[in-house]
């Protein structure tokens, strides 16, 4: 099948800040995204684990969005600005999609 090259931006971010990240997406007209829950992790800020926690403080979410390569920088900049103030990381990778017009 014919495929089109796109970029996948993946962000790990603390759950409490997710709302703001999604607002950034909306502002920059990201066409779609998917969020899932991380269950544990470790990084500069130490290790954490979601089980049993009630404050939401130490929960993290993973968000990925598929965008066109031409728009990566435009999205990446405000996302990175947000994430770098908080707990989290950002990565970018290559993916192929089937309908190119769906991911802009």
């Amino acid at each position, binding site marked *: 099948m014919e495929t089109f090259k796109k970029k996948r931006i993946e962000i790990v971010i*603390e759950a*409490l*800040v997710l*709302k*703001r990240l999604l607002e950034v997406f909306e502002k920059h007209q990201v066409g779609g995204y998917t969020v899932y829950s991380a269950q544990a992790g470790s990084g500069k*800020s*130490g*290790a954490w*684990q*979601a*089980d*049993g*926690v*009630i*404050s*939401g*403080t*130490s*929960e993290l979410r993973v968000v990925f969005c598929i965008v066109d390569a031409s728009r990566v920088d435009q999205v990446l900049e405000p996302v990175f600005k947000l994430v770098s*103030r*908080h*707990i989290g990381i950002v990565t970018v990778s290559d993916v192929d999609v089937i309908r190119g017009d769906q991911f802009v």
Partner: protein
Amino acid sequence: MAGILELAAANLLSPMVLFFALGLAAALARSDLSIPEAVAKGMSIYLMMAIGFKGGAGVAAHGLDATLGLALLAGVILSAIIPLVAFQILIRASDLPRVDAAAVVAHYGSISIVTFLAANEALKISGIEAESYMVAVAAAMETPAIFVGLILAQSGVASTSHGENGKAPVGNLDTTALREVVLNGSIVVLVGSFVIGWVSGPAGLSSIEPFIVSPFKGVLCLFLLDMGLIAGRGLRDGSKQLSPSVVAFGLYMPLIGAAFGLVAGLLVGLSTGGVALMITLSASASYIAVPAAMRLALPEARPAIYLPLSLGVTFPFNLVIGIPLYIALAQAVSG
């Protein structure tokens, strides 16, 4: 004096304290025991719903005490003043950066609802009644401390090393964050259930009593098991970051808060039980609303300091030693 010791011993051997200890021990022994996140959150919502509803129904039953307004006002003032006092102490007693110190003291101005629940149960066992609107006072004390903490952080930002390299200003509480703090899920359930309890009154209460009253204490025990697990994990991982002076603060600060609560309770003219609860609220430290607000509005402050301090040091102190002490204090002074 014998009374205090007896109360303390009874408290120490109560299922609530023992389940907390079990959780603590399991976490420190690195058992794989854990309460699923969804169950913990469900219990947390249940506890808020139950305590709010019972409080509201109590107000509907006993009528509005003239002191309610005063008590609410006192709560707001305590929540705002305690962090100011605590900050002066902490900044001198420890070498924490201002931002971290500001975040820590916001926790001590605010309250721990589970400590409040445990004090309620201890009062019940001792046969002491308290004003049912005290849960509204608890709700009123949740947030003022947050704003005071943010202001303290703001005023000190220039002098900290964290704010230097051109980052956004700390303590930046825009209207979105403001709403998030005030509309925090647990506060909404607590206040909403209080209002619902008030509106639907004793008839409403009796219709859902087998859900929110009878099993309440058992759920609280299970919840304390979970809190023990989290506290233990926090202490295990976070103990390196907590200096002795900060740990000490977590042990004496509740007593200072208690003194403020005692004075306020007497000035307002609360009953013995009410004074005991006012002391407990002042002495307790938040671990839900305040940490969440700090992550949003003061991300520079390190959760690895304030979370284990509140949950792993002050919470057990209050649960085991504080509560019987505060009740004895209230009895001695207002009896």
